[in-house]
């Protein structure tokens, strides 16, 4: 019942608002009817027509008055007033277009920037991952002191899967690219070998066909594939009858078991990683083979769906107790812990800090824009003091004046927000196009309802925030004081000047925080660029090649292939040096080999010797421009049967043989036979895992001609002046002459690959620098506004001073001093805040501390300098005060 009443009340209010003409007409009709009834009754009492009408009107009283009172009952005056306020505000803005443009543009820039950054945050951090019930998905790793995240052993995985009670499902996957041949040139398909129920674990289903089940894990059943939607369309033209078809992969017949729907995103992997997103072409079964007691090799990655109500911590402790049981049986399982991490954290963790930093920075910009707008509005409110006083004197209540100023704030904010959305549309495009390489979930970044809602909220919030200060001032208007002083040169605005000074101090302070952030990132970035990478980036082109196990069954076949290929490549006129190696610098390789013996040395207790391990051919170091510091590179001498040659990096020499490594020996044999010993023949310069790592890790290389086991995946590295595209053709042609089923993929310039390592740092730096520049501009406008206003107010005083003999420079100094004092307080506050906040940045910095005195000092000086420059035009105007004019105006 209450509900129906409120409903009818709401309907009444709405129609009073929206159907105003009709409601008015009804009122008029209703009252006229009354008059006519009254007249008719009077006629019946015997009056003549005009007497009757006259009497009726008399008894009614003022029709207009009654109408007015009825109107008042509708209680819509607030809305009507708001509408009037908004219209009035728009008119006031039209009257001072320059003011309006400055304020609206600065707001639009900041709101647009906030919306754009928020759309990235929304897509990457806030949106659930594109899997069913994604919050229950976790990644499973092994972990110890040396390797915080290590892949699993396949046999361990099967034990976890059988014994655990925490997971609804558990699956594993391991990178396994395949080469598709049979229609023209061979194509490399990015692939993963997956255990049964991999997609069910992710909460996904094939669009056609089926996914793998337990039978498919048996050895011999692995020749089947599930295609991604993209690969199905690109390689097979989206053929309807694809399921069940035989296709040639790695020169073997494979059956297509299914096709996934579009939008299946790779959850990311850490071993031979490829970025998260729609990056995978094919999935094929992981077959468990070999001895189940073998627990030493780790190469599959675990993913699991927790049962509802189970936490990652609980699952982890259960798996750890399983691991402890296994360790009692298998020596290889000792000294490992299991690590269970939510998938969400695994995927977005690496960019979370950076994104939150950007959101913080852009939020500061908005805050500054707000303060700036409040400041400008306040300045204008002062010059409109007289108007306010008149309105107050005419009976406008405090609430009315307050609401009217607030309405002005809202109109400005709405204009800024509207324009800001347009800027965000462009901004998001630019952002997405320039995201750092391998940025997770880039495809999920869109302007959508959430972003628009966010924009609306911040627009309203900014409007209220910067409208509030002048609104409060307006509500305080005392008509008497305002009218008395309004005439000229009022001085009773100390409070106002102080308030505006405070706002400017705040602006400068916030801008300093941003500038310091930008400065630190800039120093860190130049440090990155200045660091010697340890290899040559220019005129080096690389490509990937994979020799399938099916056709290159043993290491002899693999060795032979490269032994024949490399000399042919070197005869090509475009190529001045060529080699192959398992790894490229700065591409995320972090695999160690441990447990070798160093002749004559013992590892520290509880530790073992370890090093990054690679395999490379003669010519690899030369082509990559990695200097041989001691000894020699690999050569034809290092053949099968000849003593094992080893090349190590400086870091390894420093760690294990500070006395000099050439001629020293290590072995992986246990117990070692004489032919197992490997002799260090050369020491090469250090290359760090990634440019922002503090130092290089110890690393060793085997000669490709002596590879201890087959390395099917190799990178070709050539030194050449030719274009990458042209070289790609040369490589494809040459490789194709040896084996037409081999695909040459990822043909890229080394400088492009290296550049990607900088892209995250560059992206953050550019954005923060952009925001800092915006903040600096805004606070300059703020300082200028305050000083210009105060000069205007004190024009009379300056004129007097000059008339009394003050020199121009003295007046100039006075004004600049006033601005500098404000800026100084702001800078001190900003520096203090930045000192407190700096630690948040530290993970993003390289080679510079978060409290770098040089950056802090430089920013403080810059901010002060810019403040002085911003004050200068106003100061010039002060010295331009003509004593005569001023005195005459008195």
């Amino acid at each position: 019942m209450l509900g129906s009443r409120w409903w009818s009340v709401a309907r009444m209010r709405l129609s009073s608002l929206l159907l105003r003409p009709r409601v008015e007409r009804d009122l008029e009709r209703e009252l006229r009817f009354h008059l006519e009834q009254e007249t008719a009754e009077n006629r019946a009492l015997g009056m003549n027509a005009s007497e009757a009408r006259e009497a009726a009107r008399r008894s009614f009283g003022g029709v207009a008055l009654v109408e007015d009172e009825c109107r008042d009952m509708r209680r819509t005056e607030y809305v009507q007033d708001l509408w009037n306020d908004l219209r009035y505000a728009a008119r006031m803005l039209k009257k001072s277009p320059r003011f309006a443009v400055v304020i609206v543009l600065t707001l639009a820039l900041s709101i647009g920037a906030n919306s754009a950054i928020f759309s990235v945050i929304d897509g990457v951090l806030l949106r659930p991952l594109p899997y069913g019930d994604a919050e229950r998905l976790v990644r499973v790793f092994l972990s110890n002191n040396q390797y915080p995240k290590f892949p699993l052993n396949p046999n361990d995985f099967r034990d976890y899967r059988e014994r655990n009670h925490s997971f609804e499902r558990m699956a594993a996957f391991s990178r396994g690219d395949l080469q598709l041949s049979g229609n023209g040139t061979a194509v490399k398909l990015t692939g993963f070998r997956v255990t049964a129920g991999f997609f069910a674990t992710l909460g996904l289903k094939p669009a056609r066909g089926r996914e793998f089940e337990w039978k498919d894990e048996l050895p011999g059943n692995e020749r089947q594939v599930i295609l991604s939607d993209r690969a199905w369309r690109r390689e097979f033209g989206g053929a309807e009858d694809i399921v069940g078809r035989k296709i040639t992969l790695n020169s073997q017949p494979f059956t297509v078991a299914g096709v996934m729907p579009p939008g299946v995103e790779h959850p990311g992997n850490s071993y031979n990683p490829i970025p998260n997103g729609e990056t995978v072409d094919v999935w094929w079964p992981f077959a468990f083979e070999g001895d189940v007691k073998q627990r030493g090799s780790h190469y599959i990655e675990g993913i699991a769906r927790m049962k509802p109500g189970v936490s990652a911590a609980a699952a982890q402790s259960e798996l750890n107790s399983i691991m402890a049981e296994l360790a009692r049986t298998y020596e290889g399982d000792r000294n490992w812990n299991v690590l269970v991490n939510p998938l969400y954290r695994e995927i977005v963790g690496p960019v979370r800090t950076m994104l939150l930093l950007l959101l913080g920075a852009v939020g500061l910009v908005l805050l500054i824009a707000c303060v700036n707008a409040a400041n400008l509005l306040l300045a204008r409110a002062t010059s409109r003091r007289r108007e306010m006083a008149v309105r107050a004197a005419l009976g406008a209540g405090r609430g009315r004046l307050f609401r009217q100023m607030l309405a002005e704030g809202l109109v400005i904010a709405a204009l800024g927000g509207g324009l800001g959305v347009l800027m965000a549309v462009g901004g998001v495009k630019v952002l997405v196009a320039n995201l750092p390489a391998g940025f997770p979930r880039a495809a999920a970044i869109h302007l959508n309802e959430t972003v628009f809602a966010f924009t609306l909220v911040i627009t309203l919030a900014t409007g209220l925030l910067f409208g509030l200060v002048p609104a409060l001032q307006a509500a305080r208007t005392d008509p008497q004081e305002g009218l008395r002083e309004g005439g000229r040169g009022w001085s009773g605005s100390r409070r106002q000047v102080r308030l505006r000074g405070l706002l400017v101090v705040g602006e400068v302070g916030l801008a300093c925080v941003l500038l310091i952030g930008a400065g630190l990132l800039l120093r860190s970035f130049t440090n990155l660029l200045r660091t010697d990478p340890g290899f040559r980036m220019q005129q080096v082109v690389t490509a990937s090649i994979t020799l399938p196990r099916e056709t290159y069954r043993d290491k002899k076949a693999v060795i032979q292939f490269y032994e024949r290929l490399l000399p042919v490549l070197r005869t090509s006129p475009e190529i001045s040096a060529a080699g192959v190696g398992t790894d490229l610098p700065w591409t995320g390789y972090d695999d160690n080999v441990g447990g070798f013996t160093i002749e004559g040395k013992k590892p520290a207790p509880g530790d073992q010797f370890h090093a990054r391990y690679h395999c490379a051919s003669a010519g690899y170091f030369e082509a990559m421009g990695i200097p041989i510091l001691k000894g020699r590179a690999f050569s034809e001498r290092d053949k099968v049967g000849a003593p094992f040659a080893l090349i190590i990096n400086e870091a390894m020499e420093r760690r294990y043989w500070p006395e000099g490594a050439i001629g020293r020996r290590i072995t992986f044999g246990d117990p070692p036979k004489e032919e197992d010993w490997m002799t260090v023949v050369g020491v090469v310069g250090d290359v760090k895992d990634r440019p922002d790592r503090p130092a290089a890790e110890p690393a060793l290389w085997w000669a490709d001609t002596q590879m201890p086991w087959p390395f099917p995946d190799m990178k070709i590295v050539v030194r050449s002046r030719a274009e990458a595209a042209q070289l790609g053709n040369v490589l494809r042609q040459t490789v194709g002459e040896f084996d037409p089923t081999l695909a040459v993929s990822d043909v890229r310039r080394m400088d492009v690959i290296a550049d990607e390592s900088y892209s995250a740092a560059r992206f953050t730096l550019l954005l923060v620098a952009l925001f800092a520049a915006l903040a600096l501009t805004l606070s300059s406008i703020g300082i200028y506004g305050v000083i210009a206003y105060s000069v205007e107010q004190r024009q009379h005083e300056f004129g007097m001073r000059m008339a009394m003999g003050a020199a121009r420079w003295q007046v100039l100094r006075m004004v600049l001093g006033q601005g500098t004092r404000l800026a100084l307080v702001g800078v001190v506050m900003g520096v203090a805040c930045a000192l407190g906040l700096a630690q948040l940045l530290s993970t993003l910095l390289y080679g510079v501390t978060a409290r770098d005195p040089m950056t802090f000092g430089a920013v403080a000086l810059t901010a002060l300098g810019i403040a002085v420059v911003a004050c200068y035009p106003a100061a010039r105007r002060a010295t331009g005060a003509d004593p005569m004019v001023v005195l005459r105006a008195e």
Partner: protein
Amino acid sequence: MSKPSDLIQGTLDLLILKTISIEPMHGWGIAKRIQQASNEVLQVTQGALYPALHRLEQQGWITSEWKEADSGREAKFYRLTRAGKAQLEREMAQWERLSGAVALVVSMA
């Protein structure tokens, strides 16, 4: 003649609600009915009646529609809503308590 300001606050609302609880009526009819029913003691002026009607309508106690009156002309007829009936009960109860209390005080002297 009793002006509405002489009526105890809220009494006019009660009179209106009670009057149209019998049948839907237009403003003129309501004024007439109150006048007749009170033996010409209570005269509601238009200046009080119409704002009160509009207020009651805005509050959702009564609702209105345009209908043909006895004279054959269109008039705005008011009637109680369901919420208005409940409101009338409440106002009646309150009136009885109040008038009873007043009577008590007056008869004491």
